[in-house]
């Protein structure tokens, strides 16, 4: 009896450690992962009348919000200090005047600003010509795609005919870009090293987007053809990867078949010993 008690006492001592071991093993609620504290701009403006709170709502649906580009990244100021959030001495810029908008956006989008300024749109800056926000929106900034060139938007200022021709010329390249990006993302999800190809695609997309501000049809066609050629090279690499995946599946089918055959043989031989 005493022997059993000692054994049990030892077991209990050992298993009193189990909760500790468990703690290290258990995975718990995602609710613990706290949201990043919101910046003071959002905290204040969200509670203000529509005219002041609307930018927040629009921004939440923008490509900027998607990429963690917040209010202070464009408007400056101190997003952590409510009292000095809009203090010019803390870099607050406020809302730019219309002629200053390209330079305002161009602090980040340097190449795009250059393309814009060289275009017919940019040359008309300050003389009734459109600025960045005319087409891209100011808070609900949309991802730059061909969809931005559309009859409703362009017809606000001029005829859509020329824009329609340019858009049609770029449509095929856009389709190829999107398809390549989708395939690349599929490979990325399974651990393929897509870094190099992603960089190439990024560069090609930038070249392509620079054409968006160009209104010279011949240049657009020439550049689009070059970009398509490069995209097809990326597609060729992805096709090789696809083929490798298929080859692995064939090897897998063989390996599985061999194992099933061994199982069957073992089963049959075992039966002979009954």
């Amino acid at each position: 009896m005493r022997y059993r008690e000692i054994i049990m006492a030892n077991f209990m001592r050992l298993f009193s450690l189990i909760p500790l071991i468990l703690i290290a093993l258990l995975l718990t609620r995602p609710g613990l992962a706290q949201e990043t504290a919101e910046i003071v701009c959002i905290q204040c403006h969200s509670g203000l009348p529509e005219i002041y709170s609307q930018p927040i709502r629009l921004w939440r649906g923008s490509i900027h919000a998607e990429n963690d580009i917040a209010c202070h990244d464009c408007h400056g100021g101190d997003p952590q200090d409510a009292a000095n959030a809009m203090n010019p001495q803390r870099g607050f810029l406020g809302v730019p005047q219309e002629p200053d908008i390209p330079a305002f956006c161009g602090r980040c989008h340097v190449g795009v600003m250059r393309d814009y300024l060289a275009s017919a749109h940019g040359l008309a800056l300050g003389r009734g010509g459109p600025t960045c926000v005319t087409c891209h929106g100011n808070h609900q900034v949309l991802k730059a795609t061909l969809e931005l060139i559309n009859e409703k938007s362009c017809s606000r200022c001029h005829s859509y005919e020329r824009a329609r021709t340019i858009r049609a010329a770029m449509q095929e390249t856009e389709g190829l870009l999107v398809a390549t990006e989708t395939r690349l993302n599929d490979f990325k999800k399974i651990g393929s090293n897509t870094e190099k190809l992603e960089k190439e695609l990024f560069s090609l997309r930038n070249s392509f987007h620079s054409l968006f501000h160009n209104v010279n049809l011949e240049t657009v066609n020439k550049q689009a053809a070059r970009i398509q050629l490069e995209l097809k090279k990326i597609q060729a690499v992805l096709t090789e990867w696809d083929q490798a995946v298929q080859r692995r599946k064939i090897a897998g089918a063989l390996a599985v078949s061999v194992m099933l055959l061994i199982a069957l043989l073992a089963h049959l031989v075992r039966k002979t010993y009954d």
Partner: protein
Amino acid sequence: MTLLKKIVDWIDLRIGVREIVRKELTGYLLPRNINAWYSMGSILLVAFALQVLSGILLLIYYVPDADKAFKSVSQIMNEVPFGWLIRMFHAVGSNMMVLALLLHMLSVLLMGSYKRPRELNWLTGFILFSLVQGISLTGYLLPWSQLSFWATTVATNSASAIPLIGPYLVEFLRGGVLVGPPTLGRFFALHVAVIPLLIAALIGAHLFLLKRTGVSTPPFGQPETPIPPPADSYRYEDHPGGIPFFPNYALEDLRSIALYLACFLAVLFFDPYLFFPKDAFIPANPFVTPAHIKPEWYFLANYQTLKLFPNELIGLSLQGAAMTFLALLPFIDRGRQRHPLKRPLFLACFIAGLLLWIGLGIWGHYS
């Protein structure tokens, strides 16, 4: 006389190899009604050996440094010849091993093989189960992906629910306030050295106990016999008139192992990403919290249980109590009857517990 026979004779003369074969293989008799579930142990031995082998191969290229870990895994997957195969073999293999271990434990529970005199077999097996969970968790961090980083952050954070020592324990587990390079170092050491050694030692103890107690007779598949009274001194359970381990049961083991490998290879080659959410291939970023961090499938029930309780300590305590109860089951369930149909209360609890675990897991997956 063939060359082979000459070699065997030579060895036999020195270490009595024929006697070992006679005693441990051809003369080692097992119950006539032994079933395929008894092969789960052999499957697990093979699975563990394959994990060790693939793990060693991964060690050749893996760099346990927070700045280089993700890149080294990516290099293994994309540049090292057959690196993708070895890495996926190791990752898929860990999941398959946990599955086989669970099936082994369930079959032991159902057949009442944990009962006297096999309490120690059950205990060592239960500790092995905890160690396998531990090695899976520590291995999870090593690729240093978003999934690794945040799953480990959440897992280690659970310890903070313990009164008084919680915050210190979290810091001890992480090697700092947050998950970072010191955590990787600790988890790497645990994953490749400490836990494998403990598992190997426990496997040795488990096999030693099996050898000393003898293989249990399945409670079904043979004419009913009266249950013998409990022995008051050590007694090896032998099986006169049983089937020899070699070649009879060794062939059944081989069949089961081949079937296991067929299933394993099917997952490995046709759906290797079954166990990988998309965050598994994005490098760790301490500044971006992924929207939904879900644990591995075998932790989903624990995860969901913790979500159900407003107080984390209650959830943890409840799970600790359940695990402790399960570990001590042979000392609580002392009845001698082993046939599941003659243990209706046990069978009802077994089925309810299993359904609860599966239900919580599914809930956790979709929550």
